[in-house]
């Protein structure tokens, strides 16, 4: 089996309160390099919580999360930030592009955050990616000048800007019409194959999700394998 990008052991998440809310119960998950995993489940089932934990945006109440060989619990805040910057890419339901920056600058944002400035090489790489998603004419446009599908495609490129080992996508098509949603999904699949980056995509669109190689379902905080890794390349 290929190298593991994600590995969790007994991950539990409890939101404290008068009646503490246990969202995830003992989740064990392994995602190999280059895998495409769809996580389905009803809203409120804990999908986003799982994604936030994998993305080092939140810490688990119990259990261990290892991303790209690094146990998250051992990392400082700054080390976690560096991990999010270089190892992980995020795609959200909304594009969240910064209006003050052009399409190209937005796509380069992780590079700018990490290094302060993009090298020629970075710019060329991201420009190529933008061209591949059909945005070569839109490099200097600000987000408000792009269509919903274009905005989300720019956000996909942004997630890949630093050549991460893992991309976490939270309902990436949730805010798009079915045609644009399909385009973005196909794009994610294509990027997954060509960049050999592992994708974990949360979606409530089961029809799309089942086109992914591997489907996991979260129900009442428990993660179950809906369709195993064996289907990874069947498509």
């Amino acid at each position: 089996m290929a190298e593991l990008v994600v590995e969790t052991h007994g991950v539990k998440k409890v939101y404290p309160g008068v009646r503490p809310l246990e969202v995830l119960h003992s989740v064990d998950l392994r995602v190999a390099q280059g895998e495409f995993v769809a996580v389905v489940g009803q809203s409120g089932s804990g999908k986003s919580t799982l994604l936030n934990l994998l993305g080092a945006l939140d810490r688990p109440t119990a259990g261990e999360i290892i991303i790209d060989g690094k146990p998250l619990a051992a990392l400082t805040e700054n080390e976690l930030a560096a991990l999010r910057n270089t190892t992980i890419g995020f795609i959200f339901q909304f594009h969240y592009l910064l209006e003050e920056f052009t399409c190209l600058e937005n796509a380069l944002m992780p590079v700018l955050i990490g290094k302060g400035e993009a090298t020629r090489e970075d710019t060329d790489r991201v420009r190529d990616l933008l061209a591949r998603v059909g945005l070569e004419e839109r490099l200097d446009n600000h987000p408000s000048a792009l269509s919903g599908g274009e905005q989300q495609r720019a956000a996909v490129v942004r997630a890949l800007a630093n050549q991460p080992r893992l991309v976490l996508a939270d309902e990436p098509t949730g805010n798009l019409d079915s045609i644009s949603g399909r385009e973005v999904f196909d794009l994610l699949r294509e990027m997954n194959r060509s960049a050999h980056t592992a994708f974990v995509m949360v979606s409530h669109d089961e029809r799309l999700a089942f086109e992914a190689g591997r489907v996991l379902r979260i129900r009442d905080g428990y993660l179950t394998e809906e369709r195993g890794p064996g289907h990874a390349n069947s498509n």
Partner: protein
Amino acid sequence: MWRFEARLAWRHLVAGRGQTVLIIAGVAMAVTLVVFVSGLIYGLQRRLIDTILGSIAQVTVKVPEPAPRAPAREDGAEVIAKTTRRTLQRKSLEQWQVLEQEFAALPHVRAVAPEVIGQAIINSAGTDEAVVVYGVIPSLQDRITHITDNMIAGDFLQLSLGEAIVDYELAGKLGVGLGDRVRLASGGGQTVSLRVSGIFFAQRGLGGGNTVYVPLRTAQFLFDTGTAVTDIAISLDELFQANAVADHLQASFPVKADSWMRDIPQLMLAFRAQSATALLIAAFSLTAAGFAIASVLIVSVLKRSREIGILKAMGARSRQVLVVFILEGLGIAVLGSLAGALGGAGLIIGVRQILQPAQAPGIAREPLLPGVVSPWIVLVTVLAAILITVVASVLPARSAARLNPVEVIQRG
């Protein structure tokens, strides 16, 4: 360093357009106000110093007042008491040339001039006026009271025996002009007849009004002081050293030394009150500007909280977010305070063009509001504005840095 942060802060400011312009204008106005008011008060103080303190001696040395005499019984003691009394009751300084030289060598002393000052009656064509007569050595006196600057006619430095220089108002009352003769009579009975060789304008200062300048020798004769003088006038390079210099003189020489700071305590109080007012205005306006910046940045942070969350999700460290918003505040402060410094300086220069009505012919008209563009005031104000802005931006910047990306992203 901080390339990304500076870029983001700058884009925020540019994107803010109207709001950014407004808040920069707000800071600029506060700084304008501070530079203008401080410059004005500073200028007024300088004028007061120049006109009032510049026309009097800052330290005046006299013979000590006679001590109250104890009734003497014993013969020996009585002899000593008599001698002491004779020495003390002399109203003039005998060895003034020696004292003058020693005073001139002291620190902070800029100029020293002997004076014989007394009261007399001046008479011309049947009109009498009570006057204060200053017997002076013009070249020395001019370094203390700057009469030359205030001459309407004639040359103060050319004042010689048989001549007098009279005040402009006094000349009007007596109806005398250059070349006319006046007669001075002292209480001791001496009289002299003098030719008016100059007319000066006594700056609205102290000691203006009925004043006559005559050569030292003339006054020595008029007031019967022999070769002695009644006062030694001293001007200093630092006004506020007057008390220290006076105290030193009194301790080191057998003289009584007065300082303007003690003679005119109201002036000191006025200076302090003015400076305190300027400081208060500065503090309030800059603090108000600080609050304005803080509120704008708080709104900016709220508006951008989702963006901040995304940036943090993409690996921005809390410190980077903090720096972005502090730089944003700094940008507002620098642009605003530079514009304000220019505005304040411009306002001062503009207002200086408004002149006072002429006080006397031949005397230059002075600005009504003599503000001064002091580089120090401008520098301190700009630095204070920048400091206050940075302090004001720390709070919103910290709340931005603390934002939890999960919460703000999920709020949608």
